[in-house]
């Protein structure tokens, strides 16, 4: 199977701090991979680097066939990144936000609204300003934007955090559907029981590198 992510000895600096200090990883297309490890070992940086957001100081990195050391731009359209931050305009409503981000990607409004519906954002909730949302609703809005993108590679940073039980079940269901449809999913989570039941494989992070690669 083709490699979705192929990292070899990747060093990524955040300012002067080596967040990734020689990470090597291989993820095949269609795989669901869990990133495990305590906070501050480089999981978030790994996900952002895969999305083409971080400059690579040394090593080689390929994502979905794009060489990130040469061009970090072209890969971005094909990934969906859900980070700690939700990428939403506080002053705009849920509907405004979903519609705006969908239209920045050329996604039809009906598709965007279907995605919002899929994560349980319906009715009056669409007309609420994002700054009035609870943390869980906020994350669901962010998730709706990611779902609307229909990414080939999902990069999720602690997607379960801040969601209620129902929301988590919903999310796992969503991930399974996406995986069945052929998408690659890489996610970091502290909810190990839940996450391991979804994942095909676990990458164990430590000290800015991938320490163990458990099937």
């Amino acid at each position, binding site marked *: 199977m083709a490699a979705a992510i192929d990292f070899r*000895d990747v*060093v990524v*600096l*955040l*300012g*002067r*701090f*080596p967040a990734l*200090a*020689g990470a090597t990883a291989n993820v095949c297309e269609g795989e669901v991979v869990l990133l495990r490890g305590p906070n501050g*070992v480089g999981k978030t940086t790994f996900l952002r680097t895969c999305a083409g957001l971080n*400059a690579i*100081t*040394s*090593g080689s990195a390929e994502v979905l066939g794009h060489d990130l050391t040469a061009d970090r731009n072209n890969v971005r359209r094909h990934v969906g990144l859900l980070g700690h931050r939700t990428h939403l305009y506080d002053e705009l409503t849920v509907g405004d936000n979903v519609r705006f981000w969908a239209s920045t990607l050329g996604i039809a409004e009906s598709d965007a609204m279907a995605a919002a519906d899929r994560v349980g954002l319906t009715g009056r909730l669409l007309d609420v300003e994002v700054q009035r949302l609870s943390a869980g609703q906020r994350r669901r809005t962010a998730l709706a934007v990611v779902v609307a993108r229909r990414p080939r590679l999902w990069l999720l940073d602690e997607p379960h955090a801040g969601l209620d039980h129902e929301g988590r079940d919903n999310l796992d269901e969503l991930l399974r559907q996406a995986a069945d449809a052929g998408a690659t999913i890489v996610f970091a989570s502290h909810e190990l029981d839940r996450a391991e039941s979804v994942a095909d494989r676990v990458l164990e992070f*430590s*000290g*800015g*590198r991938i*320490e163990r690669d458990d099937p």
Partner: protein
Amino acid sequence: MVSATKPEMPVSPRTSARMATSSVGTTVLGWLAFVSLVATAVLGLVVSPRDVVTGDAVRFLYLHVPVIWVAYGAFISCAIASALFLWKGKSRADRGRHLDRVAGASAEVGVVFTALALITGAMWGRITWGVYWQWDARLTMTAMMFVSFLGYLALRRLPTEPSVRSKRAAIAALVSSVNLPLVHFSVDWWRTLHQEASLSVDEAEITGNMYSVLLFSSVAFVLTGIWLVAHRYRVIRLEEIRDDEGLELAIAARRAEAGVD
């Protein structure tokens, strides 16, 4: 210990850098500059005759004119280095860090000399026109240049990633350079419309002796400017080497967190 798989830095100044504070070339240049500066002081204050029209005020000529030339030269060098950085930086082996250092060193020297030019200009103006400041196009442009490049230096001092900082700084330098002719032109036009002839400092009649003193002092200040830029460049480079060394240590420490290395 760090293993053999140690990642290679894109630019490792360490390998080519037995770089210290001076070389034979710059030592000679430095002494030449120093001696000629001292000679300039003597020539300007003692040897040069007083001007028939402007009297002793002409002695400011030997300071002000060379100093402003050095300042303009430094900013032109900064602008050219910045443009080359944006244009060619990526394809160069060092990713344009050399050009970035030239730009930074030149800009700082330029700011110092612009400050001196403004101060000497104001003093000279006070003697010849009776006021410190004239809203003349060149003077206004020089003041704006001074402030713009102060901002540029502030931008360079920000604690951001070096590649980000160099790119932003280079763009700022170019925008300021594009803008300066606009300042000059609009002020010039403004003055012309208000029909106040701008007082030029070039009115002093420069004759034989004064001409040679001016020429000599210009050479002295240009040599000094080049020497300052060269040394400032080296300091920037040493700082980068220090930061990169810190980086290698940081990577080793980061890997050691894993405890298995």
